[in-house]
């Protein structure tokens, strides 16, 4: 059995290339150029899923992006992807897909019991039912919903595919390659404008591929082909198929998703799977066309009921019959076009037209072809469960209120046409306030909000001649404004059949005694009765009705349901549709894969990785790295089978006893120059800076205007008007912006320049009692004695031919220096220090040992300066000058900041001197107190003190000043720990600070 619904010939598919694919485990065949939907229909498969709420059988309703039903789980190249529309997914060899939203199988679905219980599942059912009883939620409702609902399963594997982002500028972005898109693109391109023409389908041409028209003595399809091939040759034009412009954002920024490889069995090497384009367009032409509107009648969701335009597209593009015994139900001439196509291919359709006695060229053609037409007739209900098998039809009275006798006629599909809805999503997203156009019973864009112009069917213009004329003119006129060229294009001769007025009728009344479900929203199972209930319960705003009933809230965003929903509300409320108004259109127009949104910014690419010039040395010497902001820093250097704990202890101990070196390149560095540099520092830091001599460094703390500590660091006076500021690694960028803010906006009179030099200097801290001895070896020509280079001193020197800066500053609390050389020489410097330090047992140390050293010294860092602490809290109040004003000073007299029991930094030691204290734990007075136990403070940083050989922590503790010697408890419910501790001074080692001055 193969493709028994495929025509002998015709369509735009490549019949020379047969493809095999699997659906729900069964093998089928289709052709290159098919979609999964067209190939399944060719094989007579119409049952593809189950509906969301009632689990009713679902088939195909459309042939493109508007499809509400045929959503499948796709399997491609050992990956799986949910939420794929079968009507959009192009067929490739070996494609596999499965139905979603059905369990255990599409043919036997347990959830379908909801269908028989539907009296219990009316509008607002989620809000009403699952609220009570409360305990049922976790145990009963949620597991049930999770099993029964959903539109597929997201893969939990890492996505191996690559997704790209591209930024582009153009004069005109044209969304949609139907007649209006092609005409406007052509005219604009001829005027020399930079044009991007985007088409979401694989084939260009839009409605021209399926309509029976003639442009310039060519068929619509051939005309489209010739225009596209000409555009493709032009250097100022980018033509993209499989590309959906899905969002219109501020300032004419549009985003387009290009499916580069989704139609292939496997992504080609070096190709992305998808590409997201961020396009800033001077002008935007929206030629997104229109979507056919359904007619509403009983069981109108049965597989086999579909849009007449979709039936025509399957026929003309794919050479596929959606049925061999079709019924066409229409309120306008479009249904006739579909019927005529059936007839031309040897099928005998029946047309039911709700209109009384319409007359037009198209209707005449249908009559002449001998097609059976019943005027004033409607479909009352579709019959058949998994597929349409017949239809109940009836004559309808002229006022459309009364149904005549019901007859049942056999058919295998019902093609419906309720006229056309312009696709106004992009215009609406741009901020355009849409207006209702009575003549077509639909909204069209109003006055342009941004630089957007809507053309053709998207603008409510449904004749080809008018569309082409408008679009040629728009393309020419708009491009002329930009390029100043004025190339006239001769307008082609257009032949199309004239159609007659559509019927405003759209919803078939229920026959007496019947309670058919008449669906509005096919994806979310919202029926006419649900809207009626919502209105009865008092919902009025269309935005509320939408959320209560979930009308239009599915992944198809109500492309086929919105307008019918509005018409229903307006009828019941006795208001005109524009008074009801439509809900907001929000991007994306159609679902976009998360991968495309994320682009390349995944894993290691999610932020830049910065490496110091000594990185390769660290790697060679078994460094284990840690992320420090955007930097990679050695956490410790592993020797043998050492653990982090063992290694960091060894490294820290070696600093306390011999000498260690640490890569401090990552510290923020800012070069400050100008006659007012000292004045700037004096205003930025809390302590005094006007009298710092040349060749000296000073430690400083800067506040935010609200009095909270922002950052700390040392700044060195290099020469008269030249300073070198260091910041913490984390705050480097913020401090630079902070200085720029004050210099540019607040005190522009200060003559100072600041620039980041973080990456220009490589830095090594040399710390430990033997550090001076090592320095003497490194700089034999300099006097680095305690007198020659005292604590907080600075000198410039030469390190074996390399320019170096030496700062005598210490973070570890030991006698220490920091040597900076230009980044290119960093590696050389590092190796020199290691080489000459051998005789002093020099060892490199990482951030873990660095932390240990600073914690037991009581030096504060980021974990104490956490954006919640003031100078007093971190015992930096001694650096607050009383004699000058500075940023944030005025805030320091706030009541909370000056209270007598204000929090302060303390040291914490466990009573057993063994149990290590988890960072982030709370300090409490009584471990047994009932919850909530009053928190007195928190542990900010913990280490194993190498000096005392026991655990030691820093904490920010309420009334810390008066708590020294107190016994408290550390509680960590997360780690299930209660530890009795003693509060000690935060300076656990060398409290007088003698070592740094030795």
């Amino acid at each position, binding site marked *: 059995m193969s493709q028994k619904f495929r025509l002998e010939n015709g369509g735009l598919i490549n019949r020379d290339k047969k493809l095999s694919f699997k659906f729900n485990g069964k093998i089928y065949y289709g052709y290159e150029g098919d979609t999964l939907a067209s190939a399944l229909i060719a094989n007579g498969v119409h049952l593809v899923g189950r509906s969301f709420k009632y689990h009713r059988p679902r088939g195909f309703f459309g042939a493109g992006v508007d499809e509400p039903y045929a959503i499948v789980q796709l399997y491609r190249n050992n990956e799986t992807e949910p939420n794929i529309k079968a009507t959009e997914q192009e067929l490739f060899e070996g494609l596999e897909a499965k139905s979603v939203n059905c369990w255990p199988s599409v043919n036997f679905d347990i959830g379908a019991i909801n269908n028989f219980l539907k009296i219990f599942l009316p509008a607002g059912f989620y809000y009403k039912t699952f609220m009570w009883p409360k305990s049922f939620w976790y145990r009963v409702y949620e597991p049930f919903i999770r099993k029964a609902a959903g539109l597929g399963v997201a893969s939990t594997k890492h996505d191996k595919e690559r997704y790209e982002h591209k*930024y582009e500028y153009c004069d005109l972005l044209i969304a949609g390659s139907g007649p209006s898109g092609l005409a406007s693109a052509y005219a604009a391109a001829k005027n020399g404008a930079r044009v991007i023409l985007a088409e979401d389908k694989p084939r260009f041409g839009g409605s021209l591929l399926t309509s029976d028209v003639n442009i310039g003595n060519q068929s619509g399809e051939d005309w489209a082909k010739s225009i596209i091939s000409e555009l493709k040759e032009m250097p100022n034009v980018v033509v993209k198929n499989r590309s959906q412009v899905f969002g219109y*954002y*501020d*300032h*004419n*920024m549009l985003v387009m998703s290009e499916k580069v490889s989704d139609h292939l069995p496997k992504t080609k090497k070096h190709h992305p799977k998808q590409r997201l384009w*961020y396009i*800033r367009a001077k002008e935007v032409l929206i030629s997104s066309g229109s979507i056919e509107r359904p007619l509403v009648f009983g069981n109108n969701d049965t597989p086999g009921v579909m849009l007449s335009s979709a039936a025509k597209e399957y026929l003309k593009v794919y050479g596929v019959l959606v049925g061999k015994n079709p019924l066409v139900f229409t309120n306008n001439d479009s249904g006739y076009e579909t019927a005529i196509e059936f007839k031309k291919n040897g099928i005998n359709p029946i047309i039911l037209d709700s209109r009384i006695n319409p007359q037009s060229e198209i209707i005449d053609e249908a009559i002449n072809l001998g097609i059976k037409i019943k005027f004033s007739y409607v479909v009352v209900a579709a019959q058949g469960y998994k597929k349409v098998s017949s239809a109940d039809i009836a004559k309808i009275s002229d006022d459309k209120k009364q149904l005549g006798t019901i007859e049942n006629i056999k058919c295998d599909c019902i093609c419906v046409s309720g006229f056309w809805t312009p696709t106004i999503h992009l215009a609406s997203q741009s*901020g355009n306030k849409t207006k209702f156009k009575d003549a077509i019973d639909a909204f069209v864009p109003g006055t342009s909000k941004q630089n957007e112009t809507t053309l053709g069917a998207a603008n409510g213009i449904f004749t080809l001649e008018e569309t082409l004329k408008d679009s040629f003119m728009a393309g020419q006129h708009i491009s002329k404004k930009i390029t100043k060229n004025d190339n006239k294009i001769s307008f082609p001769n257009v032949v199309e059949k004239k159609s007659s007025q559509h019927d405003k009728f759209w919803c078939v009344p229920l026959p007496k005694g019947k309670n058919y479900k008449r669906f509005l929203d096919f994806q979310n199972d919202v029926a006419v009765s649900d809207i009626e209930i919502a209105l009865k319960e008092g919902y009025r705003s269309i935005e509320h009705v939408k959320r209560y009933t979930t009308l239009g809230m599915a992944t198809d965003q109500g492309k086929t349901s919105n307008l019918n929903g509005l018409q229903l509300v307006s009828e019941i409320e006795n208001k005109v549709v524009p008074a009801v108004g439509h809900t907001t259109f929000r991007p994306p127009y159609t679902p976009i894969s998360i991968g495309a949104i994320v682009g390349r910014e995944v894993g290691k690419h999610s932020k830049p990785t910065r490496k110091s010039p000594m990185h390769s040395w660290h790697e060679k010497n078994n460094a284990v790295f840690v992320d420090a902001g955007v930097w990679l820093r050695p956490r410790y250097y592993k020797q043998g089978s050492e653990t982090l704990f063992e290694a960091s202890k060894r490294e820290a101990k070696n600093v306390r006893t011999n000498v260690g070196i640490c890569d401090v390149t990552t510290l923020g560095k800012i070069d400050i120059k100008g006659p007012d540099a000292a004045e700037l520092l004096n*205003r930025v830091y809390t302590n005094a800076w006007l009298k710092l001599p040349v060749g000296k460094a000073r430690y400083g703390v800067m506040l935010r*205007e*609200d009095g909270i500590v922002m950052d700390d660091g040392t700044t060195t006076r290099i020469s008269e008007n030249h300073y070198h500021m260091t910041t913490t690694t984390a705050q480097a960028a913020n401090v630079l*912006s902070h200085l*720029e*803010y004050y210099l*540019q*906006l*607040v005190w*522009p009179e200060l003559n100072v320049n600041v620039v980041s030099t973080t990456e220009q200097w490589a830095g090594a801290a040399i710390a430990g009692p033997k550090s001076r001895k090592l320095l003497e070896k490194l700089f034999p020509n300099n006097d680095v004695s305690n007198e020659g280079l005292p604590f907080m001193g600075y000198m410039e020197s030469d390190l074996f031919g390399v320019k170096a800066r030496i700062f005598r500053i210490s973070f570890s609390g030991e006698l220490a220096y920091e040597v900076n050389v230009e980044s290119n020489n960093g590696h050389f410097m590092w190796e020199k220090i290691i080489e000459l330090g051998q005789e002093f047992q020099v060892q490199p140390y990482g951030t873990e040992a660095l932390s240990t050293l600073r914690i037991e010294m009581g030096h504060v860092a980021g974990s104490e300066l956490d954006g919640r602490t003031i100078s007093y809290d971190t015992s930096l109040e001694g650096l607050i000058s009383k004699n*000058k*004003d*500075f940023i944030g000073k*005025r*805030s320091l007299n706030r009541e909370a900041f000056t209270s007598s029991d204000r929090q302060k930094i303390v040291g914490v030691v466990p009573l057993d001197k063994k149990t290590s204290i988890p960072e982030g734990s709370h300090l409490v007075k009584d471990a047994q107190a009932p919850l909530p136990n009053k928190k007195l403070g928190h542990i900010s940083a913990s280490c194993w003190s190498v000096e005392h050989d026991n655990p030691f922590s820093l904490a920010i503790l309420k009334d810390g000043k008066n708590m020294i010697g107190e016994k408290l408890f550390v509680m960590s419910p997360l780690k299930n720990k209660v530890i009795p501790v003693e509060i000690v001074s935060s300076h656990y080692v060398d409290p007088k600070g003698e070592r740094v001055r030795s």
Partner: protein
Amino acid sequence: MLHIKCPHCGMRSQNEFSYGGDASVKRPELNKEISDEEWDNFVYNRKSLRGKHLELWQHLYGCRQWIKVERDTSTHEIFNTYKADEEIS
């Protein structure tokens, strides 16, 4: 995404800038005696305007200049941009 005209560099995408708040706020002069209320108004109190708003942006990944942008907070329309020291009429 906004398109902001940096008065120094020209039209640039929003992601090159960082937002800096209300540009009409003036920091009190240093060493000047002011009331708690004045200080609180400077540090904390901001109007959340709907409509025309003069705000600060820094061209962070560009010239690094702080600029003033006159923008409608509800429509995102940008009426004008100014250099930090430019007089605004």
